[in-house]
Every structure is written in C-alpha cells, then in structure tokens.
C-alpha cells in the first residue's frame, strides 16, 4: 500500500467483514465485466527521492528567471515576492481547506477573502470585488458577459487591439455561443480614438487595457464619458502593480475593472495558477459572477464572515446562474492579500515607482543604440516597444546565448510594428542588469552580420 493509505491489512479485512464481502473486488461487481480492472500502461512508480531527483534534472532544462536576466513580461511578470507571502501560504490551514461553505470553521479563509475584496475595492475604486476568477483573461471575458446581460438590447462589445492577445482570444471563446459581436481589434494598429468612433447605440461595452499590452498608459475618463453617453459600460483591464501610482479606474469612470493579479505575490509558474481580479460598481452586483464574502454576526453577536448573495451562483441557480464558475483561485487571492498587506500604501507606490523609473532608464539607454528604436507614443509604465531592423527571433537567440531573456516578439500579434519586441523592466531588474542588457544589444548590433 502507498504511504498515503492509513489502514493495515487487518483493518481492511475488518471493514470488508462489516460490509459482508470477502474481497474488495466485489465492490465493483456493478462495473461491466469486459472493461473492469484494465491494466494501465503507466511508467513505474518512483520513490520520493527519485522523483525529486528527476524534477531537479527537468527543472534545470528550463531557463527560468532566476538563472537568466529576464526582460520578458507580456502579461506575466517577474515581480518580487517577499518570503513572508509563501511562508503564510504554506500554512495547511489555508491550502488544505475547501471552499468555506461551513463558516463557523472557515473564518480564516472567509476573513482573508473579505480583506482581499476590500483591498481590491480601495485599489480600483469599485464598490464590490468577487473572490477571484481563473486569470485576467477569463475575468475579462466574464465581465463582457456581465455587461451584456446588464445593459439590455445591445449586442456589440468593442475591444481595443492593445488588449492582451490571449485575453481577446479568450473573450471570443467565451462568447461564441451567446450571439454577441466582438469587434474593434481587426486592425492591430488602430488607435483608441478609432475604437471610440465605432461606439453606437448597439454597443454594450468598450474594453480597454491600461497599461495596455504594449505598455502604454491611458486616461480612462474620456473613454468612460463617450461610452456612457451611448448607454454602454466601460470595462478596464488593469495591472494592480500600476495602480500603486497611476489613475484610479473607478474615479475615472470605469464600470467594471478586471485584471491579472499575478504581479501581486504570485510566482510565474509557467503560466498559472494566476489570479483573475473582478470588481464592479454596486449597480451590477446582482449580475456579478463568482463568490462573494460579506460581514455579519453570529448567534452571540460576534462579527464574522459568510459567503453571500449565493443565489447568483451555479450551485443554487443552476442554468440561471450568472456564471458556471465554482472552483476559483482562492489561494492566489490569499497570496495577493498578504502581499498587498505587506506592501501597504508606501510599498505599493514604491514598487510602481521603481518599475517606472527603471523602465524609463532602460528605454532611454536602448534608444541610444544604433539600429534600435523605442516606440512609445505616450506615457508608459514598465513595458515599451523596441523596434529593430533585424528579426526579433534571431535577436532573442543571440541574447539567450549571453544569459539574457529578451522581450516578447510582437511580430505575430502586431504585424504593423515590423520587427518589434516588448521589453519589460520591473523592480527585479537592477541598473546593473539593465546596463548589461543594453551592452548585449550593442554587442549584437556591432556584430550584426551574425544575426
């Protein structure tokens, strides 16, 4: 028996005896005999020492952000995670608990979610935040569905081409059976003004991202005014890290705020688990998907927390629910809560400032290298576009040879930019790292015949 099974052969025999059978196989008589007990062709079982050794070997085949200097972002970010976050996350009380359906013995999870909701509301200027979605992409897709069901008789959603390409793809996956039209991003080079010009009486919502996929910051106020005048909603996809310094989307007029929370205390982990954030103004609360925690009192009058407004959810409303979401990203929401609590006001602002100043330093230095051009028509946060006369693929291969993970190759998603890479700089990239990156680009330029 495996080391997770707690019963002896004797105990198992006693249980079989109580059931009144002689062999555990008899419990499965109901299974059609012809297909019962298949011989599974799986690799032989490994001991814990063997599996960790194999994992170590496999891990070393990967170029992770600790073994290289990474300037890759594009929706997943190498931000600093204090040791305290993981130390608390590894408390079994949190990670081996289920959804808090029995509030008397789940106050830890419930209070943490309540604090998460509160922190998100403070950061985004929204009235209510749910307990999380799978990631920034699905949060955005569900926001579009919520907007569509909240405003009546409008069936078009306009999405800016500078919204993350994976998010736009997910949005289309989610809405394919609902009779919605998703448009606005056909021309990858279209400006936001072009998008706003398409707003009409049939527009349920406009979706913009700020900072956008290319790193540019946008003022949401004029966008909100325009879509509100047409009776639709503004959905803003945001980076929580940027909100430590930049415009409060709620104050600027956004109706629904979604985003990826990975940058707040969650490791890169090859793409997941991440954290979909979802918050809205109070008038859309009853159409909101996902779990919500509310404060209340117990029989003694002590303050406590419970899952609330559950009549929106699938386990109560079934096909009339606002979404099918059940399992969410609870532990990741906890990570973000702890991380945001550690940072506090000053830390949030400081992280954003470091990212901003270092990214601008990197951009200024790269712009000095012949053969490279920084394409940043407006203010940017921690990412910017660098165009090159050479294809990015070759450039990144050359950088990899120098121990550097270059930026995201934009040529497939944004062909109008030509040879362009999206460079990301965070508080993890020191001035020294940036100088090394710049020097590497210069070296590559000087030996360009090799590309």
């Amino acid at each position, binding site marked *: 028996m*495996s080391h*997770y099974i*707690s019963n002896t052969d004797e105990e198992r025999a006693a*249980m*079989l005896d109580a059931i009144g059978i002689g062999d555990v196989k008899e419990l*499965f008589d109901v*299974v059609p005999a012809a297909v019962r007990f298949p011989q599974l062709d799986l690799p032989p079982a490994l001991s*814990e020492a063997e599996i960790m050794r194999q*994992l170590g070997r496999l*891990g070393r085949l990967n170029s*992770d952000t600790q073994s290289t200097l990474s300037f890759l972002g594009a929706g997943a970010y*190498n931000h600093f995670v204090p040791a*305290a976050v993981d*130390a*608390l996350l590894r408390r079994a*009380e949190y*990670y*081996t608990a289920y959804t808090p359906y029995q509030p008397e*013995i789940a106050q830890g*999870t419930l*209070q*943490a979610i309540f604090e998460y909701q*509160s922190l998100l509301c403070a950061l985004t200027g929204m*009235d*209510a935040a749910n*307990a999380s979605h*799978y990631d920034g992409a699905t949060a955005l897709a569900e926001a579009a*569905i919520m907007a569509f069901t909240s405003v009546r008789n409008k069936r078009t959603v306009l999405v800016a081409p500078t919204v993350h390409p994976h998010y736009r793809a*997910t949005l289309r*996956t989610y809405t*394919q*059976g609902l009779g919605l039209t998703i448009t606005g991003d056909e021309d990858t080079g279209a400006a936001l003004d072009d998008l706003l010009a398409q707003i009409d009486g049939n527009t349920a919502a406009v979706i913009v991202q700020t900072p956008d996929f290319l790193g540019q910051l946008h003022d949401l106020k004029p966008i909100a005014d325009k879509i509100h005048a047409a009776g639709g909603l503004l959905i803003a996809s945001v980076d929580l890290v940027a909100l430590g310094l930049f415009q409060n989307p709620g104050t600027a007029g956004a109706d629904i705020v979604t985003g990826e929370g990975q940058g707040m205390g969650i*490791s890169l982990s*090859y*793409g*997941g*688990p991440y954290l979909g954030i979802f918050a809205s103004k109070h008038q859309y*609360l009853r159409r909101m998907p996902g*779990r919500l925690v509310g*404060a*209340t*009192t117990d029989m003694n009058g002590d*303050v406590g*927390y*419970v899952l609330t*407004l559950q009549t929106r959810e699938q386990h109560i*409303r079934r096909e009339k629910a606002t979404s*099918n979401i*059940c399992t969410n*990203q*609870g*532990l990741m929401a*906890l990570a973000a809560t702890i991380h945001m609590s550690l*940072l506090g*006001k*000053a*830390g*949030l602002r400081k992280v954003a400032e470091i990212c901003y100043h270092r990214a601008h*330093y990197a951009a200024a230095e790269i712009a000095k290298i012949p053969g490279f051009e920084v394409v940043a028509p407006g*203010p940017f946060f921690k990412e910017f576009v660098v165009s090159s006369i050479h294809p990015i693929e070759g450039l990144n291969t050359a950088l990899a040879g120098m121990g550097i993970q270059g930026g995201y190759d934009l040529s497939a998603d944004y062909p109008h930019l030509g040879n362009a890479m999206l460079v990301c700089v965070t508080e993890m990239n020191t001035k020294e790292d940036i100088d090394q990156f710049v020097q590497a680009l210069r070296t590559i330029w000087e030996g360009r015949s090799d590309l």
Partner: protein
Amino acid sequence: MNTFEPPIFELSGPGKCGVNLPTVDVPLAELPQELLRTDDLAGFPELSETEVTRHFTRISQRNFCIDTGMYPLGSCTMKYNPKVHEAAARLPGFAALHPLTDPAHAQGALWIMEQLQSMLAEISGFDAVSLQPAAGAQGEFTGILVFRAYHHAQGDPERVEVLCPDSAHGTNPATAAMVGMRVVEVKTDHNGNVDLDDLQSKLGPRTAGLMLTNPNTLGLFDEHVQQVAELVHGAGGLMYGDGANFNAILGIVRPGDVGFDFMHYNLHKTFTTPHGGGGPGCGAVGCKTFLEDYLPGPRVCHVIDSDKFELFTPPHSIGRLKAFHGNFGMIIRAWVYIRTLGAAGLREVSENAVLNANYLRVKLQDLYPVAYDRTCMHEVVLKGQLRDAPAAKTLDIAKRLIDYGFHPPTVYFPISVPEAIMIEPTETESKRNMDAFIVAMRQIVAEAVEDITILKQAPTTAPLRRLDEVGAARKPILKYDPVKFQELRRSHAAATSDEQPERPTY
C-alpha cells in the same frame, strides 16, 4: 485560545511598511502628472511584516483543514495533499519559469505536460488531452463548446439541447447555459441510475449531448451506463463525462471504455492538488480522436524522431480558455502524484476510497436512511431524517459534527435527495478516524432524541456560532467600512446585553 482578530484595516498605522524594497538606482524620469492617482491610496492599510504575519497566522487558526482532521465532504474528494507536491512546484526551474519562454528553453516543463497528457489519457481511455482548463467548470465549458463545434462542423447546428440528470452538479446546467444551449433535465430511476425511459423520451434531433457524472452524485455507478451511451449516440448526441467522481474508478474502469466521448479531470480532487480554500484547480480534458481537432490550445506534442517537445494549437480549436498554458502549478503536482503511485497505487486509491465509503454506509444506515440501498462507490448519500427525532434537520446534524471535531459532509446535495448528507471519506482516512466519526454520528442521533436543543445550538466549540446569513444577504457588507462595522458591533451589544452582560464587544 481566543483567535479573534480584527479586520486588518484596524491594525494599520501611518508610515509602516512590511516589505524591504530596493531603492531607485537610476535617474528619475518625469511622471505623467495627469495620469497619477490622487487619492493617496485611501483605505489601504499600513503594517509591519511582524503584524501581517501574525494577522494571517491568527486568522488561519480559525480554519478547519485536512491536516487537522477528517474532512468527509462529498463530491469534493478531500484527501491528503502530499508535501512532496508542494516542494516540487516550488523548484525554481518551474516556479520562476516565464510562460512565454522560448519552448526550446522550457523543455523540462513541456516534458512534464506531455507526459501528464499521455498518462491522463491512459487512465481514462481517451486519445487526446488538453491541460488548459483551469477548473472543473471550465473543463465542462470546454467540452460543451467542443460538442457545439463538432455538431456545427457536421452541418447539424440545430443540436442545442444538453441533457443533465436531476442529480447533476449545478455547474453542468450552468455550463450548458453559458454555451447558449438549452438544458433538459433527465430523471433518476428507483435504483439511482439514469431513468432510461425518461432519457429516451428526451432524446431527439436537437440533442447535443448528455452530461453524466459516473459514479454519479448519489455515489452510485450507473448500472446501465453503456445502454445510456448507446441511446445518446443513437440519437446523434455525444457523451460528456463529468470527472468529479473519478476517484472511485482509477484502474477500475476507464470512462472511454464505457461510451464517453469527452471528460474533464479535476486534478484538485482525484489527483490531490490542494483545494486552497476554493482554488486553484485544474480541469484538464480528454476526448476521443474524432473530437481532438477541436480541443483548446496550446497542447504539447512530442516532435517525431526527436527528443523535443513543442506547443501547438489544434486545427479546429474552439480557442483559448485562458491566457498561457494552464495551471502549471497544479499540472506538476498531479504529475508527481501519478508518477509516485504508478498503476498499482492508483488502483489502491480507488479500492480504498470505495471500501471506506461502504464501511461508513453499513455502520450508519440503520440510523440514517440511505438514499439508495446498494453498494456505493467512493461516497455514500444518507438522509438526515431521524426516525425518533423528526425535529432534527440535516443542517443541525452537520453543525453538531463540528463540535465532535469533524468537518461536516456535503449537505442538501444532491438536491433530488431530501435532507441529503453526502459523505466521502477518501482513501487516505483511517479506520480509526472513521470509527470515531461513526460514534459521533450515532451519538448525535441519541442527543437529538434526548434534547434537540443540543443540535439546534451547535456548534458551540467552533471559533464562531451559527452566523446570520440572511442578514448578510439582506444588507450586504462586502468591503471594510468602519461605520458599518461599528453598527454590526452595536447590534451585537444589543443582542447579547441580556444574556451576557459582561461580554466585551472586543
């Protein structure tokens, strides 16, 4: 020990910060003044690392969890979460790996993903697997989108009805609705199976497919599952398998061998990635060859005649379900689980899970009526209808179990069973603990007969008593607000001043 802890916002003090951050080591760039925040992050707390650590440690102690005791929550598979999984997922080669890393430099991660795809396919009898869906409900969503795409490709877009048994998880009908399908409910027969006559009457040219959990949510293996599949296929529909209860049949029977065309796996149930207080999970999906081209991408393939792995998107893919490749942190844990148990270990999992559930069934069914009187699989559904204590409700029994140190089972589900109590001990629970649970369940019946108020007042030993959920929904407080919290405390003082005059407001 009193672990009461105020909201973190009440612990704040101006100027504190709990992180030791680097300083700006580059020349300062000009900030775009018109785009800056002007509210000084009002409402954001300021604490030291010490205070944050203590706060989240203290509130964690108000949680019940698998590592503190038996958690027999039916349909959730709350089995032990191995510690080696946590160590594996945190190795820097995986935890610090960026998802957009050139696949040539992520071969270790892709190797694991490809092998997990193959192993899940083998365990379930399918031909192709996608690891992208983030949770069971998203796996369901994937499946019904695939069914829709398949029927459209067959020139059959009129197939817009999804059949769900009346015992189905709520996610099944909610999923069908999200795909724009119409939900048709199918009845359960007297033995807990899909009612074949009712099924037959509801199948037709509009049938897209049937969503079936097998073993079903009554904890029973459908005795006619192959007939059900034949009927659905005969009507031109497809068979969706909800893998929520896969823990009962590892190495026992493969869903792909009894007529299912598509299924999702809950890696966070069957393959024991931790539930995390509500997530994350992974709802990987598997299917037969004829549906493979519709799967979401990216998937991982082994490049023929090489030792390389690549990402690819199937030609008629329904699209992306999320950004990047899936919840890799869950993928690696499930991979470790299967690689350390092997085929024999997986079969032991299901044999022990089913043995444990049946042991509880025979030890409790004289006092708690079983919903269906036959051998169950990994969970047993009882009814909280006590012969000698009709005033006792399932909710009371559940709350009283807390006082005995157990997490309550799933209650009031399936909704087709009145006063349902759904118990899933899982294979990792010991007979010793189950015997203690049995004693508690039997003692609760005795208490209910003797003095029902013991049950109605329960729990009394938990960090809190029963909470006012009605009030919470009527006047929702969904974020911290000092005024509303003062009001909550005042209402407390008013409610308790008679009985407990000395009780502090905290």
